[in-house]
Each structure stands twice: as C-alpha cells, then as structure tokens.
C-alpha cells in the first residue's frame, strides 16, 4: 500500500490547513459538513487497514462504528472525552474480536457474506432490543473536554469549530499511526497476506492471527470514529450499524483508491461533497451516486489517489 510521498504529504497537510482554517471563513453549516467528512474519513481509514492492508473486504464494518457510537449512550453522561474515547475503542474492539475470530475461518466471498451477516446481527441487537434505546435512536450527552482536571463544556456557539478541530486532530493522529503501523513488521506481514496468503503461511506466519489483530484494530478505530460521530451529532441510531453504511465506507475506500493509505480520506471528502452537491442539483441523489460509483468502478480502478503524485510502497 502506498503511503503518500513528500509532495503528496505536503498536499495532504495543505488540505488539513485549509480545513483547520474554516472557522474563519466558512458558515457553521459548512463546519458541520466538514466534521461529517472528517469522521467519515476516520471510518473509511479504519476500513482501509482491512481492505488495502490485508485484502479483507468486510461488509460488516459499520457494526463497530455503531458500537463506538452507542458507547457514548451506554456510558454515564458527563464523562470526559479522555475516558469515553478509549472506552468506545475498547468496546468496539471487544465486539470485533469474536466476529473476527469466526469470520476469519473463511476467506473471500465467504468472509464478505459472514461479516455482512454478523453486522446485521449486531444491527438487530440495537434495532430490536432495549439495549440501545430502540430503533428510533436516542440523544446522547456530548462527552466534555477535560483540561487540567477541569471539565469544560464547550459553549454552543463554539461547538462546531471545536469539534472540527478535534476531529481533524484525531484524523491526523489516526493517519500517522496507521502509516507508522504499515512500516512495522506487522504491516509488512499484512501486505504479504494481501499479496499471497498461502506463501505467508508457508513462510511460517500465523496469518489468521495477524488478520485477527488487524480486524480488531480496525474495529477499535471504527469505534473511535463512531464515538466522534455521536459526539458531533449528539444523536445515535441503529442505522449506524446497517450494511449500507459499510458499503458506503467501501465506496469511499474505492473512490479514494485501495492502493494508498490516504485514499479513504480523499474518498470520504469526495463522497460527502458529492452527496452535498447532489442535494443541490437534483432530488434524485441516489441516481447521481449510483452513476458516479459505476463510473469509478469502470474507469478509475485506482481511485482518486491514483491521481496524486506517487509515493513509495509502504510495504517494501
């Protein structure tokens, strides 16, 4: 998997700076929209570890996003984000462990179907049982920020910009962490599995275990993004776990390009931008989306990242 080269990194940093400066020139609505894109980018990035990293196409990844979001609801209100964020990651990771252990008994098509089915199972858990407050969704209290032991509840008027910066910071941290991870032995092993799992097995790697670790990490990261979504919108509902959202994230990954770590970030921004543009142009949003995805699959197999200056292979 490509990690952006020097020019690419500069361009990404420039993009980050533009987003960070939005509070000075954009409306609060657009700040919120940008936050949505940032959180989507985190979610797609977590999926990229599976898809681009180890070639595992999961259709149930949204389940962990949802678990992370529901963590905010399940935890007592008024806690600091310093507690709730790790808790969300932990909860999502714990959910990913058995799902991954079972799903990874299979490969390819089966893996896809099985993750889809387990994702739906978790969806039903929140949709049909009282655990998650019902199918209509529930409001949540936003976790507070804690600075030197003092809880700081962000005033309403600054909330959009503070959340934008927090989301941006988390996305950058997640990207940097994943870029570093892909350079470790573990990252190399993942890419080796993507290239040829049997060979890696023959070389003595416990591939299922490596994939399981990746699955759990990806689940935990999806949980973080779910947490941030809940915090941004202060509302959670079972649709967060539905397979449509998993498919959307896959679309973002493909739109951005599976070959590049930064692909999902581009893909998420393109996807959110596309959705927004589509609402302005036509009532038939799905028509526009469907056509764009068709075009991407048919014409742009390397995704948007294929258009950025190439960097070096992270795995070699």
């Amino acid at each position: 998997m490509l990690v952006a080269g020097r020019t690419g990194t500069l361009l990404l940093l420039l993009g980050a700076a533009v987003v960070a400066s939005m509070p000075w020139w954009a409306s609060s609505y657009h700040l919120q929209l940008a936050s949505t894109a940032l959180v989507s980018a985190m979610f797609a990035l977590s999926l990229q570890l599976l898809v681009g990293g180890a070639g595992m196409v999961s259709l149930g990844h949204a389940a962990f996003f949802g678990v992370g979001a529901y963590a905010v609801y399940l935890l007592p209100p008024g806690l600091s984000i310093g507690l709730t964020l790790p808790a969300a990651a932990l909860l999502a990771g714990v959910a990913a462990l058995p799902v991954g252990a079972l799903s990874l008994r299979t490969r390819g098509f089966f893996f896809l179907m099985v993750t889809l089915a387990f994702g739906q199972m978790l969806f039903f858990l929140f949709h049909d049982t009282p655990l998650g407050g019902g199918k209509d969704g529930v409001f949540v209290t936003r976790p507070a920020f804690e600075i030197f032991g003092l809880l700081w509840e962000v005033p309403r008027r600054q909330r959009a910009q503070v959340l934008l910066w927090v989301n941006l910071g988390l996305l950058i941290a997640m990207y940097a962490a994943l870029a570093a991870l892909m350079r470790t032995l573990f990252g190399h092993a993942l890419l080796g599995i993507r290239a040829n799992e049997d060979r890696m097995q023959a070389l003595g790697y416990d591939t299922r275990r490596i994939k399981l670790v990746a699955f759990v990490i990806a689940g935990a990261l999806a949980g973080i993004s779910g947490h941030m979504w809940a915090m941004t919108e202060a509302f959670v509902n079972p649709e967060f776990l539905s397979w449509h959202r998993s498919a959307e994230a896959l679309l973002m990954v493909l739109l951005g390009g599976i070959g590049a770590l930064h692909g999902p970030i581009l893909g998420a921004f393109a996807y959110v931008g596309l959705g927004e543009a589509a609402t302005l142009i036509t009532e038939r949003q799905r028509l526009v989306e469907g056509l764009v995805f068709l075009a991407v699959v048919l014409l742009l197999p390397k995704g948007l990242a294929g258009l950025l200056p190439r960097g070096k292979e992270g795995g070699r």
Partner: protein
Amino acid sequence: MPAGSMPLSRRSFGALAAAAAAGGLARPAVAQGAPLRIGLMLPFSGTFAALGENIAAAVELYIAEKGGRIGGRTPQLIRLDDESNPANAVQNVNRLVGRDRAEVMIGTVHSGVVMALVQASRERGVPLIIPNAGNVAATRELCSPTVFRSSFSNWQPAYGMGLALAKSGVKRACWVTWDYAAGAESGQGFADGLKAGGGELVRELKLPFPETNFQPLLAQIPGLNVDAVGSFFAGGGAVQFVREYAAAGLKDRIPLTGSGFLTEGVLGPQGAAAEGVRTALHYGDGLDNPKNTAFRAAFKQRTNRDADVYAVQGYDAAQMLAAGLEATRGDPTAEAAFARGIRSARIDSPRGAFTLSPSHNPVQNIYLREARGGENRVIGVAAEALADPGTGCRMT
C-alpha cells in the same frame, strides 16, 4: 431509556434558551417585514411521500386562507425531503436550520427522523410542530417548551380502541404489531385501555419491521383463545396484514381491530378483507361538523385530492403556528410567549376543537370507526377528550 441518558441537563438547556432569547442567535429581522422562514421537513419521496405531500398541502391551504400572512409576517416555506431516513436525519436538520436558516420547523412523519428535529429544537430553541410522528417520548420525557404536536401520541388511538373493546364485553385480547417503538407504544395504550374497561391483554405478537411475512404470527392466534385482536400496522404492511388475516379464515371468528392507521388510506387495496374492521383514531370519515365540511371542500378544491387525517394534522400544525406567532407578533424566538400563545389557544380543528395538554400533545376525542364501502365511518366516540398521560415530562 435510562435516566442518565437524558440528552441535555435541564440547566444547560435553560441557559441555551436564555442565550437564544437574548439574541445570541441570528435574530430574524421581524421589524423589517422579512419573510418568516418555515422549514417543512417532510417525506416527499419514499414510502411516506403521499403523507408528506398532504401535510404540506394543508399547511399551504391554511396560509392561503389567511391571505398569505400569519402573525403579521409573510411565510416562506422551505421544503426539505427527509426521505423518512433516520440515518440522514441529523444532517437534514442541520441543512434546514444551519444552511437554510429556518426560524420554525414543521415535521415530520417518521418517528425516527422526528427525534433529530426534537433534538435540534431543544438545542437551538427553534420551535417545532410535529404534524404526525406519534412517538410518545416527544411529549413525555423529551418534552420541551419549544416542541408541540398537532397529531397524536401512539398511545392515544390504541387506548381508545382497547377501552371501546373492553366496554363492548371483550375480556381477552392480543396485540399484533411490528417490533418497533410505535408498535410497542400503541400496544401499551391498547393494554391500558383494555384494563381501564375491565379486559386483559394476554399476548403481544411481534415481527421485525418492515417484514410482511405475517403467517407465523397468524397461525398462533387460534391457540390464544381471545375474543378480539388488536393491531398496529401502517401503509403496505397494513394492507398485507388485513388481507392475510381474512385469508387465514380468522376474520369471521375473531374480530380484527386496531389503531386507526390499520385502515387509514389503504382501504382500496385491502378490499373486502377490511370490511367491518373497527379501528380508533382522532379522525374519520363522515365526521359531521361545519369546520370539517369546509376544510374537506377547500382541500379538495386546492389539491384535487380528498383530505385525510394527515391533511388535518398539517392544517392544525399551521393553526398552532399562527396562534404562537400572533401571541408574539411574529417573533418565534420569544420562546415563552410563543409557547403560551399555543398552549392557551383552542385549535378549531376539522377533527373537532382541541387544546394542548401540559406536555403539548392534543387533548382530543378518539373516534371509533368501522370500515364500510371504502370509508372509515365514524360510529361513535371511543374515548372522549383523551390526553396522553405525559409521564416523565418536566418542562423548565
């Protein structure tokens, strides 16, 4: 819902509202005669599109009847299609309030989507009038000085049905529904109504929303030994359920009844299977009062469609909005006065005049109806001036 999960502490909400009232928000230019931006967030596509269209048409009808001005201002309707999709609800509300700067909101049909509107209203102090969605929470534990309802709570019609059944001598009944909040809340109403009249709910049969494979439920009914079946379904699910109930040979042995949505707007496709099915709702066909006659004629003339309960709810939402605006001379941000205006108003509804309960839900008659020849004829009053209990509502 655990108590700890309340969305906002009362205090912080109060602070917000105060900030809003003090002009912290972009304040509309009332004096300059700028148009009043009314956000209409309704389903204009998807399963509930027809409901959304009727609600919107009735709002327009009322504004037109008032000569295009309410509360001294010229309304500008901003339509936003929520597609009845809860996943996009928060973003859609952000569009409506953030991008399009709606000053008041009317919406919506879907009970999942309406939660996002309630939240936005509570957080931002933008008044909201709910023209359909009946989830009880909106006027119980999530009630708010800025949230009003012109329709019903899910509890109300089913309570009426249960009460009417028990009064007619039914001792044992079961409840069939989709496994979701509206079904459960209606079921509670049905059980409460039965109990109030001396009957008993013996079993709830549920299937996942929106599946229509009713056979596994229907096959259990004969074994339950009940005198009547109550149910909550809507739209196509209701069509299918009523027809399969008849096809299973149950209709002639165990009467089918339900919350009014079971036969609302779907009698055509239900055909003979619906004939004689009794339901309870806050509206019905053949409701004889001058206001209703005038309203139906005007609606028909304007839209070339027959008015239905959704049109009535939309019309009354516009009436409530007008009441609030008149009390504040066109300023929806004057929260307390706006709420007082609506609360003290007697809404001259086609369903019969009603007032609001302390938790902002209509106190209204629930009519008993019987499906006959494609109409839900009103045959009596199931529960008079019924108010939702409003359990857990504490307004600040």
